[in-house]
């Protein structure tokens, strides 16, 4: 259990209610070899909300979300300290299997990365098949539902047997979102999901992100401040590995408390 003192230390939005906290980091630091990428980050992520992580390149945004599903530790020489809670339980405890955490906390990457040897259908089914969760008829339903939720079904329903890499970049990214959704995760992490896409495809993904928060908790890394303003409920601003400011997106963009935040969101650097 976490003590109340721990929670009070986090610079969470003022209207925080304890029951609505999906994830929480407490004093999270991360390293790549000798290089420290994150310094003592404490923040809470609310259930069924979209939280945006913004900041200039190299500020540790990606590292932060990769700590939330234990992908960070896969990089040779990477390590972390501090605590990351999912529903109040530390996912870095010794007896926790990182593989099971990754099934609860899904991820979408910067570059669309559908499995090139698999069809569209198999890409969506991959998570369930390869984790041995589901087989057979119900798989068809899950694939369909996932593609529908990812607003891709109508575009690919006649081409499910085609390779996952045969569709456009924006469609591939929605395919990757469908692939993540198929496992019914609780949290979906998105690491700059639109940075490789054109404006039209970006608009589609943004719409999708907003609709996803009904069922999931979404954390999105973005270097595009307008995007953060459009899709997110809460925004965290990271700078040189430190959490500079965290609060509701509206407050942050209209009334930043820190001078660096103001400079960044008004485009003076970054």
């Amino acid at each position, binding site marked *: 259990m976490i003590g109340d003192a721990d929670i009070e230390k986090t610079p969470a939005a003022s209207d925080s209610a304890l029951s609505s906290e999906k994830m929480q980091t407490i004093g999270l630091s991360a390293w790549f070899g000798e290089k420290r990428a994150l310094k003592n980050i404490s923040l809470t992520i609310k259930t069924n909300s979209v939280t945006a992580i913004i900041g200039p390149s190299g500020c540790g945004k990606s590292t932060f979300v990769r700590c939330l599903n234990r*992908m960070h530790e*896969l990089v040779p020489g990477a390590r972390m300290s501090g605590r990351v809670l999912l529903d109040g339980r530390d996912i870095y405890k010794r007896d926790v299997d990182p593989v099971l955490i990754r099934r609860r906390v899904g991820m979408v990457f910067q570059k669309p990365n*559908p499995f090139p040897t698999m069809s569209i259908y198999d890409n969506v089914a991959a998570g369930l098949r*390869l*984790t041995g969760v589901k087989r057979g008829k119900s798989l068809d339903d899950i694939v369909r539902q996932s593609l529908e939720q990812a607003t891709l079904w109508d575009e690919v329903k006649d081409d499910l047997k085609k390779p996952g890499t045969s569709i456009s970049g924006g469609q591939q990214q929605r395919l990757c979102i469908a*692939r993540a959704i198929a496992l019914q995760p609780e949290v979906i992490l998105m690491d700059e999901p639109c940075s490789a896409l054109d404006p039209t495809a970006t608009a589609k993904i943004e719409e999708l992100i907003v609709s996803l928060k009904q069922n999931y908790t979404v954390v999105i890394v973005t270097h595009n401040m307008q995007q953060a303003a459009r899709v997110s409920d809460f925004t965290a601003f990271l700078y040189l590995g430190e959490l500079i400011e965290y609060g509701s997106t509206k407050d942050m963009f209209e009334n930043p408390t820190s001078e660096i935040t103001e400079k960044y969101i008004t485009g003076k650097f970054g």
Partner: protein
Amino acid sequence: MTSYTYRKFKNRLFFVLCLGCVIIAVVPLVSILFEVIARGAPQLSLQFLTQPPQPPSLPGQPAGGIGPAIQGTLILIVLTSLIGIPIGVMSGVFLAEYGNNKYAAVTRTINDVLTEFPSIVVGITVFLAVVLSLGHFSPIAGAVALSFILIPIVARTTEESLKLVPNSTREASLALGVRRWRTIVSVVLPEAGSGLVTGSLLAVARIAGETAPLIMTILGSQYFFQGFNQPMDALPLRIWRDVTSPYPSQIAQGWGAALVLILVVLSLNIGVRVATARRSNGAHARLGEIRK
């Protein structure tokens, strides 16, 4: 001569030198091929390909064939592939996917040494280890010896083709909560598929022509396959025995056998081309070039 024409001349000279060297390199290859075809082609007939060898005969009389040698080589290819390819592929997986430690570094070095190991030494080793302990020459011993030559090649080509699979593919799978072994087997290996096929075919082509390791393991034979505890024939052995014999009819058969062996190796190489062409992935094709 002005400096402009002199520079142009140097440019041409360099090109001509390169071209000359290519010709020097190609002439022996073409002349070998020409010689083998000229002397071997007249030997080719259904009887030559399917009959067992006969005792030396006078010119004009039937001289039997190399059926057992062809059969033996095919048996060796299958047995060696069954033993060697799984071990080689798994070693390559270890090197590429779990290879970030000192054990892998040592393995990689040993592997590189093994790739260039004198094959006669492999033959002697297997003679001592397998032939003497089992008490007889056998196709098994031959396949074990050839496996020692095949494994390091397959391991290395597997490692190289797995490294060509982008890390984003692995991360995509791991982020779905798929276990490491499952990610490797179901996601990474299929993506490296054509590279694995290329590496395996090239390694098989290499062992199909090996002679030295077979002398002390399968010994050679006049007969078709007699069982897994009996000596067996193979094309390189047949060539060696025929061509070193004093009888013109046997020497002629040796040329025929040489042509057949070259055709076997050539068809494996064409197989590599087909396998790499299926995916227009230049990287895999290049890998094939390097491994030769």
